[in-house]
């Protein structure tokens, strides 16, 4: 049974029909890269997966927890789905360590001591154990993004969503973040990422999803898809990248 499954997902923004029946299945441990032009619905799909966008029709199921349009226990779903944002969105009034400790303490009733142990070990996973007491404005963009990844990991999610997490970074900082993601992938973390880093999607991803006008237009093995695009739209898309 897939870890994440969406069934006929629909979403409108006013008259704009942005998701037109998305059926997506992600197996445990799979690394899925969602690509497409801006406006194709890829970010909306990702945000719908943890309830940041409401859905108009269809269902989302993560590890047995279902989210149905109009209703659903977001808290249960969100504990299984972590999210990392393009703009990091660290809490500026809290240190790196406190950023990571906050949610386990509030949502899972973890004791402060235990939360600190979790925070130190997740910060170590992203190579920032020495920045526990630093505030976000004392960190580089790449470091902030790695703290944001640690913050999501501290909730031990089943799947991690990454929404263009390197797009706001200076080019020289992109690699340190991608290395962390690559590490997570090799440890078997299930990842769904919207990305513009095609090379990375190709190297690390097990599955590529090309979205076009609110639909999954083409999906499959990244190597095969890049070598032999099945649709003219995807061929067009990859040729426009070079």
């Amino acid at each position, binding site marked *: 049974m897939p870890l994440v499954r969406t069934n006929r997902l629909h979403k409108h923004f006013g008259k704009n029909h942005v998701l037109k029946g998305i059926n997506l299945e992600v197996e445990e441990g799979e690394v899925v890269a969602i690509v497409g032009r801006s406006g194709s619905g890829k970010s909306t799909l990702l945000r719908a997966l943890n*309830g*940041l966008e409401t859905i108009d029709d269809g269902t989302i199921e993560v590890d047995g927890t279902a989210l149905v349009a109009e209703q659903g226990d*977001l*808290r249960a779903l969100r504990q299984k789905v972590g999210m990392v944002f393009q*703009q990091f*969105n660290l*809490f500026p*009034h809290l240190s790196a360590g406190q950023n990571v400790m906050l*949610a386990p303490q509030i949502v899972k009733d973890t004791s402060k001591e235990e939360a600190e142990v979790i925070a130190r070990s997740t910060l170590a996973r992203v190579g920032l154990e020495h920045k526990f007491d630093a505030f976000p404005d004392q960190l580089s963009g790449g470091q902030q993004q790695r703290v944001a990844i640690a913050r999501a990991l501290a909730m031990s999610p089943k799947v991690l969503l990454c929404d263009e997490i390197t797009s706001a970074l200076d080019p020289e900082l992109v690699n340190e973040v991608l290395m962390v993601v690559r590490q997570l992938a090799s440890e078997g973390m299930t990842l769904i990422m919207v990305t513009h880093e095609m090379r990375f999607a190709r190297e690390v991803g097990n599955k590529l999803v090309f979205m076009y006008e609110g639909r999954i237009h083409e999906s499959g093995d990244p190597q095969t898809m890049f070598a032999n695009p099945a649709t003219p739209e995807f061929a067009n898309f990859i040729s426009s990248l070079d």
Partner: protein
Amino acid sequence: MMTFTLWDIVRNLLLGGALTLLLSMVAFVLGGLAALALLFARIAKHRPPRGLAQIYIEIFQGTPLLLQLFTLFFGLSLLGLDVPAWLAAGVGLMLFSSAYLAEIWRGCVESVPRGQWEAGASLALTYREQMRHVILPQAMRMAIAPTVGFAVQVVKGTAVTSIIGFAELTKTGSMIANATYQPFLVYGLVAIGYFLLCYPLSWYAQRLERRLYATRTN
């Protein structure tokens, strides 16, 4: 004819000044508490509390303080309720302050970027938890300077209550001026009194603003 020494004048003005200070503090503190309730109504998810809070705020921001005091003082006595001047002054200023403070604070809450709410939500925090642990700590920091700045407006606003006969600084001044025939001296002293009350506040507000601005830009 009775003569007044300068000390007589100053002594009476000090008494009036003390009442101004007391009235300001009562209005500001109670107004602040009411504003907190208004704030949460104003940013609530549901429409009815939001609408009610907005109507309240529009009324108090859209009419002169003087008329609000007249309405309380004379209007209620028309209905047979005898409202003493101090009570009308205190309640009037409190309602006035609450409307403005609620709007100032709402601005601060809304200036916290949407991504902060979303980050909280993505970590499975509820609306309340996002508000308490993520949004309010940031909004409060931003609110300090404009809130202290508004305190200056409240102090000066108390002068209006002289019109319904509350013997704060301005009313005391006008009584003394009438008795001594020295309006320039007396009103000059009154002005100095307000300045001494307000200047420390605005100095403090400016300092806070500079400090917070400095920490936000790096």
